């Protein structure tokens, strides 16, 4: 006569729960292997901070949000001379220009400083798949109008810079003023 199903499973479980011993040298082998690696040197607070900094985050960006970020980049670019505006030889200063153009295949920086020639200052993606495009240009003191040319056809003013009022071409453009040193 067979035992009831529950009793059968209980018997199986009872047998499987019996202690299993392993080779007594296992602990020593583990510690020998572990000893080959550098000791951890991470404090609790530093570890928590590092985890917070390196934690993957998902960011959803609306077009408006993208423009806001572009503006923030541009503000940083124009406002922080230590990073985006460096003193160059012969009184020139290097200026960084940043724009967000997720769908663009090419972006050019055009303005008074390069005779509005789209071929002279092509912008570079900040990363392989990045939406952010950048260009760094040495400029002498003066006032310059400029714009971004997307895919060779779309003109885009810099959302982070003042708009140029004297725009004789009828396309949006911005103004940057480079001070003397």
């Amino acid at each position, binding site marked *: 006569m*067979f035992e009831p*199903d529950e009793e*059968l*499973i209980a018997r*199986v*479980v*009872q*047998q*499987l*729960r*019996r*202690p*299993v*011993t*392993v*080779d007594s040298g*296992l*602990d020593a*082998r*583990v*510690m020998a*292997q*572990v*000893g080959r*690696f550098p*000791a*951890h*040197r*991470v*404090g*609790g607070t530093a*570890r928590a901070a590092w*985890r917070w900094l390196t934690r993957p985050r998902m960011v959803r960006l609306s077009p408006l949000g993208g423009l806001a970020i572009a503006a923030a980049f541009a503000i940083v670019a124009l406002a922080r001379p230590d990073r985006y505006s460096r003193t160059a030889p012969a009184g020139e200063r290097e200026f960084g220009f940043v724009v967000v153009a997720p769908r663009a295949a090419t972006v050019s920086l055009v303005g008074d400083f390069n005779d509005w020639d789209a071929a002279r200052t092509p912008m570079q993606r900040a990363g392989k798949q990045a939406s952010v495009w950048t260009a760094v240009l040495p400029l002498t003191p003066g006032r310059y109008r400029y714009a971004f040319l997307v895919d060779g056809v779309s003109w885009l003013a810099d959302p982070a810079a003042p708009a140029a009022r004297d725009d004789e071409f009828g396309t949006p453009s911005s103004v940057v003023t480079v001070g003397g040193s």
Partner: protein
Amino acid sequence: MGIHSVGTSDVDVVRRVLGGDTAAYATLVARYRDRLARYAVHMLGNREDAEEALQDAFVRAYRSLERCDDPARFGAWLYGILVNRCRTTGARAARRGRVFVRDEAALNGVAHASVAEQTEGEDVVCWALARLTPEYREAFLLKHVEDLEYEEMARVTGAGVSALKMRVKRAREQLQVILREAERV
């Protein structure tokens, strides 16, 4: 029961190890060795493979200890690493064609009338267990032998709670069928 640390000392030991006291890791190895060994031996059906998976799990856990978000749950985290190592080792063993090898050393502890009866009974249980698919065997062992809650099992295995419940149910049904057939022979 679940996978709980012993008191709160896992937290202290993990902090010591992360602070540079590598030798303190031996405490964690000794604390979890036997319980994890039981799972590995039953899961892989082979002592040699089980010890390899266990050793590998402990070393991997040490190397990535900084990624243990909650040291109070070190045991559960370690279990997850071992479950993955057993999957890898089991798949490799299956490719080698080794499905089940009787494990003499696992047959300790006499609770039956004789060693012969117990050995035979446990052999049959291990043989039946080895006939389950790895997914069913894993779920059955974690639920009924290691006494984990389904939520804990889900964290350890990466499977959903519903899927795990189904696997445990099927594992029980199949074990009953296999063992009934064995009794008839």
